[in-house]
């Protein structure tokens, strides 16, 4: 069923092969993406707006349908083993997914219970996450009464309730203040290091990607332009390793954009 993956080694946590997706208007969102992410890596997916990053995450987390291609997460086929994959991964997508009438603590406990924790376990886990995300003063508040940053923190905390092995973070720190961002990354990096959880992050904050991620992929207009280490990317764009990821990224994006303009003019 997965001829491509049968040849691959077992240390791979996320395997994506020749993934394609078209929008309803026919435009191609993903043009044959191949990616391999090893277990325990902190991997960031970069690209301009509309590049296809969120689409890719939606497909591999089964929230959207692919056109063609194969993908496995932790050896699980998400499309046919939904019960397994739901327990294996955690998702914090771009939009806050919160019940406006629910209270912070209640939502965390409910989420834990949904994922099979006992009442006591769910309560204990909720307290742990409330503390980790500095939400103690907000725990009895309805989510509709939370600030944007706190909503975001709760949204991310909910994705962690069931101790996922793989965490998909789609623009997770948008709307968070600098302190909240720092706290958030502390939690995520701890999870990554101490529990060997694999993190797949999409972000427009390249400083965060540079600081926390080990590896990256660059997608532009649905095409994979680079996959490897961040230091390797700097070499790839012929910049010194001391340059920031931000500079390297901008340099590359601009060169691609210039190249496209030249090609258009030639045509």
């Amino acid at each position, binding site marked *: 069923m997965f001829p491509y993956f049968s040849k691959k080694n077992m240390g791979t946590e996320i395997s994506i092969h020749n993934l394609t997706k078209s929008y309803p208007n026919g435009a191609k969102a993903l043009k044959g993406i191949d990616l391999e992410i090893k277990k325990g890596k902190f991997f960031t997916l970069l690209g301009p707006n509309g590049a296809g990053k969120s689409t890719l995450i939606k497909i591999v987390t089964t929230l959207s349908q692919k056109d063609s291609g194969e993908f496995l997460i932790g050896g699980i086929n998400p499309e046919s083993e939904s019960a397994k994959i739901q327990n294996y991964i955690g998702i914090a997508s771009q939009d806050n997914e919160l*019940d406006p009438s629910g209270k912070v603590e209640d939502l965390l406990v409910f989420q834990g219970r949904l994922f099979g924790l006992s009442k006591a376990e769910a309560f204990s886990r909720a307290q742990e996450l409330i503390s980790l995300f500095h939400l103690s003063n907000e725990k009895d508040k309805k989510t509709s009464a939370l600030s944007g940053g706190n909503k975001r923190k709760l949204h991310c905390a909910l994705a962690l309730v069931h101790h996922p092995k793989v965490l998909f973070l789609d623009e997770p720190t948008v709307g968070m203040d600098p302190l909240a961002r720092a706290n958030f990354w502390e939690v995520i990096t701890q999870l990554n290091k101490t529990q060997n959880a694999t993190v797949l992050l999409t972000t427009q904050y390249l400083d965060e990607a540079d600081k926390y991620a080990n590896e990256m992929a660059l997608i532009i207009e649905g095409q994979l332009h680079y996959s490897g280490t961040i230091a390797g990317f700097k070499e790839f764009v012929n910049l010194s390793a001391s340059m920031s990821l931000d500079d390297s990224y901008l340099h590359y994006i601009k060169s691609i954009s210039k190249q496209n303009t030249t090609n258009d003019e030639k045509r």
Partner: protein
Amino acid sequence: MNTANILLMKRAIIKLIKQPSAPLMGFGMSLFFLIVYNAGIGGIGNLEAFAGKGYLSFLFPIAVISLAMGSSSGAGQTLNADMQSGYFKRLYFSPASRWSLVIAPMVADTLSSLVFTAILIAIGALFGVTFQFGFLSVLGILLISLLWSFTLCGFSAGIMIRTGQYQSASIVTNAVFPLLFLSTTFLPRELLTSKWLLTVSWGNPVTYVLEGCRYLLVGTSEANYFFIALIIFTFTSFISVVFALSSSKKIKI
């Protein structure tokens, strides 16, 4: 049924208790029907066609029907609220089965409809509604109410999911509303003046609910109608569940 599914049911019920606008509206509507029509034309209950049982008992089934109609949009509204807030996506990506995301608010809505029907029955009994077979009549009416309510909730939830619009949750109520007037709602068939209305009424499933309930309440109708009503609404409940579940496959996240 796994814990996640039970939790979703519980959540739907708690939400309905906290935000009871839909069932309260249904309850208010049914009481309104009962009080206003009985006050306005209750005197006709003295006619022979009512077999000396009065108009209130005759009219009572329409209150039961309208109660479920008024509250049936609750399931669709709950689903819509979760979809609008994005929370539905979180529930969708939990170990709860996809069908339970849809069935849970339907069950909550139906239960609330049953509770309010029981209150309505108590109020009716207080004001002189008769129950031909005592407690069995009460159980029979609750059973019909359950099936009728489940039918409406299922279609309401299914349509809401398919259209994704808040307003569409009440489409079912609006669609069914005319059926209330194409039946023996206010008068027994002997007193219906138009033959076409009499003919149409026999093709109208609401007639079987009304007549079935009247058999249980005043005994002026035949037992057959009650059983036909059960068969029809067991079938429509089944269809509505199938419709709601097939709609759940069309959920776009």
